[in-house]
C-alpha cells in the first residue's frame, strides 16, 4: 500500500494536518516565482501607461482653466491622480489575461488537468491572479507615484496614515474585478466564446470607472452607476485615495464585502452548473 495516497485521504477526513489554504499559498508563490523572471517584461508596459497618463494630464490641463477650479467636485490634481490610480489598478492587475486563461482552458480541454487536482479550480485561478498582481501592482504604483509627483505635484490633503486602509480597498477592488471577470469566463462552459461579454464589461469599467469618476456623469445616472461593480472595483478605491475620509472608507469596505460575497456565491454556482456541461475537445 502506498503511504501518501491513503494518508492524504484520512488527513482530509479527520483533519489531522489538513491546511486547505496552504495549497493556494503555494500556487500564489509559484506564480510569484514565475513572474519574477519576467519583471523586465512587465516594465515594458510602463511606456503604454506613461503615454496614457500623459494624454490625460494634457487633456485635463485644457479643461481646468483656472487654478483651484472644481469639475464634478474634483480639483485638477485630484482628477489626474484619480485617473492615475484607476489606470494603475487596470495595468497592474492584468485581470484580462487571467479571464482569458479560463476561457482558453475550457476551450482547449486543458481544464481536464486542472480539475482533477485536489483544489478548487476557481480558487486556483484567483491565487494565480493574486500572484500576478503582487508583482505588477507595486511596480505600477511606484511608477504612478513618480509620474504624479513630477508631472502633477503631490496630492493635496493626502494622509500617509490612511495608506493601509486604501491598500485594503484596492486589493478588495481587484479581487472583486477578478471574480466578476471569472464569472463571465465560466460562461464558456455553455457558449463557445465569452469574449464579447468580457469586452462589454471591460469597456463599462474603463469608460465609467477608470477614465472618468462617476460624478462626471449625469446626476440621474449616478445612483445607478454606484450600484454596479464599478463602485467597488475602481471608483471607490480611487476616490478614497484622492479624497480620504474614514466614513467613506467604511462605506466602500461594506459595499466591497457585500459584492465579494455575492460574486463568490455567483461564481461557485456558475462553476458547479457549468462543470456538468463540460465537453472536453478531443475526447
Amino acid at each position, binding site marked *: *500500500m502506498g503511504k501518501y*495516497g491513503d494518508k492524504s485521504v484520512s488527513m482530509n477526513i479527520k483533519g489531522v494536518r489538513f491546511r486547505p489554504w496552504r495549497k493556494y499559498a503555494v500556487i500564489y508563490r509559484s506564480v510569484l516565482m514565475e513572474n519574477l523572471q519576467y519583471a523586465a517584461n512587465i516594465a515594458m508596459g510602463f511606456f503604454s501607461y506613461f503615454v496614457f497618463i500623459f494624454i490625460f494630464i494634457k487633456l485635463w490641463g485644457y479643461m481646468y482653466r483656472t487654478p483651484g477650479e472644481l469639475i464634478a467636485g474634483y480639483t485638477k490634481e485630484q482628477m489626474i491622480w484619480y485617473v492615475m490610480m484607476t489606470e494603475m489598478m487596470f495595468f497592474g492587475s492584468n485581470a484580462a489575461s487571467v479571464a482569458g486563461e479560463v476561457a482558453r482552458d475550457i476551450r482547449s*480541454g*486543458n481544464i481536464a488537468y486542472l480539475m482533477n*487536482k485536489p483544489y478548487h479550480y476557481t480558487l486556483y485561478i484567483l491565487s494565480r491572479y493574486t500572484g500576478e498582481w503582487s508583482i505588477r501592482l507595486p511596480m505600477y504604483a511606484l511608477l504612478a507615484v513618480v509620474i504624479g509627483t513630477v508631472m502633477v505635484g503631490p496630492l493635496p490633503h493626502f494622509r500617509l496614515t490612511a495608506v493601509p486602509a486604501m491598500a485594503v480597498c484596492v486589493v478588495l477592488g481587484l479581487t472583486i474585478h477578478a471574480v466578476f471577470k471569472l464569472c463571465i469566463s465560466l460562461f464558456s462552459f455553455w457558449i463557445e466564446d465569452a469574449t464579447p461579454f468580457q469586452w462589454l464589461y471591460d469597456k463599462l469599467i474603463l469608460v465609467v470607472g477608470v477614465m472618468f469618476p462617476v460624478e462626471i456623469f449625469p446626476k440621474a445616472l449616478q445612483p445607478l452607476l454606484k450600484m454596479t461593480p464599478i463602485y467597488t472595483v475602481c471608483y471607490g478605491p480611487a476616490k478614497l485615495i484622492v479624497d480620504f475620509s474614514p466614513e467613506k472608507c467604511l462605506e466602500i469596505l461594506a459595499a466591497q464585502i457585500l459584492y465579494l460575497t455575492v460574486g463568490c456565491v455567483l461564481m461557485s454556482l456558475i462553476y458547479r452548473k457549468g462543470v456538468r456541461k463540460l465537453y472536453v475537445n478531443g475526447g
Partner: protein
Amino acid sequence: MQAITVENLSKTFRVKRKEKGMRGSIKAILHPQTEEIRAVNGVSFSVDEGEMLAFIGPNGAGKSTTIKMLTGILYPDGGRVEVLGIDPMKKRKQLAYRIGTVFGQKEQLWTHLTPYDNFRFFGAIYDLSERETEERIAELSERFELNAFIDTPVRNLSLGQRIRCEIVASLIHKPKVLFLDEPTIGLDPVVKENVRELIKQMNREEHTTIFLTSHDVGDIEKLCRRIIIVNDGQIVLDDSVERLKSHYQDKMAADVYARSQESGMAEKYEEAPNISLEEILVDIYRSEEDG
C-alpha cells in the same frame, strides 16, 4: 480486490452542426442545429488492483471520455463508476489524492519553473509535508534519472525529458491508480522504451494499477496483459493480449489451411505467417468499421 468498477456507463454530447459555406454559417446563427453523439454507450468492466490494462480503440471510440469520467472530470449520463471505492462524481477531490493522470497531449507542469519547483508544488497540492515531498523527489529523480536537468526550466527540456517529469509529477503522492492517456505520443523509440520500463517498474514496486490508452502497439504489448477494445462507445473485446494473439494466430492458420486445400497445394498448418498485434488491431478496427 477491484480498483475500478464500471457498470453501464454512458455519456452523450451535443455537438453543433453547420452546413457548408457562408449560407450555412448564416443559417447556423439563425437556426442553430445540434446533433447528439453517444461517446460512451453502456460500458461495463472492472480492473483489479495492481493490474495493467490497455483501454484502446480507434479515434473517437470513447476512450478519453471514459478516462475523464473515471477521474471525475466529466459527468456520466448514466451508469455507475467506482474508483478505489470512491464515486468520482460525488468525491472528485477525495479521489484526486489517490489517483494520478498523465495526458500525453496536455501539460500539467508549469513551464517557467524547474522540475524540482514543480514537484514541490505538486507535493504541497497533495498535502505532503516538506520532508515527504523531498524524500519522494529524491526517490523519483533517482529512478527516472532526472538529476541532470531537475534544475532546468521545463520550457527548455526535450519532449522525452518533459514526459518523464510529467509522469513523476503524477506520482509524487504515490497514487494507487495511474491513468495514462497516450503517454508516449511523439517520443523517439529509445525514450518510449525507457518510459515503458519505468511504468513497469512502478507497477512492480508500488503495485500501482495502470489504466492505459494508447495507439502505440509497443505500449500495449510491453506493458499490459489485458486489453479492452472500444468502438462507437461500446466494448467490442475484453481479453488477455496473449489469448487475443493466439486466437488470431489460430484463425490465420485455419484460413491458410483452407486456402491451401482449395488450391490443392499441400501447404502445412504450421506455415501460417506470424501475425503482429498491430495487424490484429487493424483487422478488428476495420471489421468494426464495416459493421
